[in-house]
């Protein structure tokens, strides 16, 4: 019954969204742009979790909900599951995706042979732009979990592209 769009439309939309918020709407305020993008992700995650938990029995604890995010939710969004889930059993979970779909089109910086010639500020800029693209999926995860009754904070870690880790800290 549902209508579908091609995946390249989603890719283009997300790229353009990050670019618009960072360069036009909040040109000199990257923190505000990041918060707005994350808020959009929050609402999307909220609504998607409503839809994808429809036929399922209720979750008995936090771990079940996180496993749902890693398996079913991620498969619906990205056609694959989270590759690695780590926890410290005290409310922090690390979800690692070894080939994050929305980052596959992003170029990875080739560092020069002698690393001293690369300006550290340029490398920092590149990292900042790359991390802007991750606020939306962080928001999606946060929205989905808070709709399941688990308030949390989600941050992303891209120390080795194209693998990407999402750190979920559940608020006590």
């Amino acid at each position, binding site marked *: 019954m549902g209508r579908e769009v091609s995946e390249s439309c989603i890719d283009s939309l997300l790229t353009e969204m990050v670019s618009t918020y960072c360069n036009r709407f909040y040109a000199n305020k990257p923190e505000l742009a990041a918060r707005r993008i994350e808020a959009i992700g929050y609402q999307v995650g909220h*609504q998607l979790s409503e839809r994808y938990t*429809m036929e399922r*029995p209720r979750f008995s604890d936090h771990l079940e909900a996180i496993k749902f995010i890693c398996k079913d939710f991620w498969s619906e969004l990205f056609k694959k599951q989270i590759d690695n889930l780590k926890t410290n059993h005290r409310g922090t979970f690390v979800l690692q995706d070894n080939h994050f779909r929305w980052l596959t089109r992003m170029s990875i910086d080739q560092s020069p042979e002698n690393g001293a010639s690369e300006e550290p500020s340029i490398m920092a800029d590149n990292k900042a732009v790359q991390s802007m693209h991750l606020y939306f999926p962080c928001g999606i995860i946060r929205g989905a979990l808070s709709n399941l009754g688990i308030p949390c904070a989600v941050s992303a870690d891209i120390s080795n592209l194209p693998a990407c880790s999402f750190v979920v800290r559940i608020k006590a």
Partner: protein
Amino acid sequence: MIVCVAVVGHQNNPLYIQSFTDADDALKLHHIVHCSLDVVDERVNNPKKSGPPLNETFLGLLYPTENYKVYGYLTNTKVKFILVTTNLDVRDADVRNFFRRFHAAYVDAVSNPFHVPGKKITSRTFAERVSTIVKSFGLSSAG
């Protein structure tokens, strides 16, 4: 015959209440829905061994009043659906089917980007879909 359906959010705030009778007892129906929320909470927090398993969405018959039966359904996102009916011989399968279609209509209504989570559902499409589901309730059963 279904008399009233209600959608209640996770903070027990009403999201949608619709009664389907001509009589002017909307207030009494709202009161019944309100009382059934306590039963839902009790069912979820104190599972009886003879009741449904802890993590099922369909909660079954909540409590019968003098001429109504009240059924409950709790989603994963802690949203409660309440169904009040005057049928005395309604089948379990019919009610489950009803809640399944009602859940689908609710998910579509909430996916509306103009809907604010926590506020009442004002979509006319949702209201029409609900009245269609209500009208076809129990009609598929023979006799």
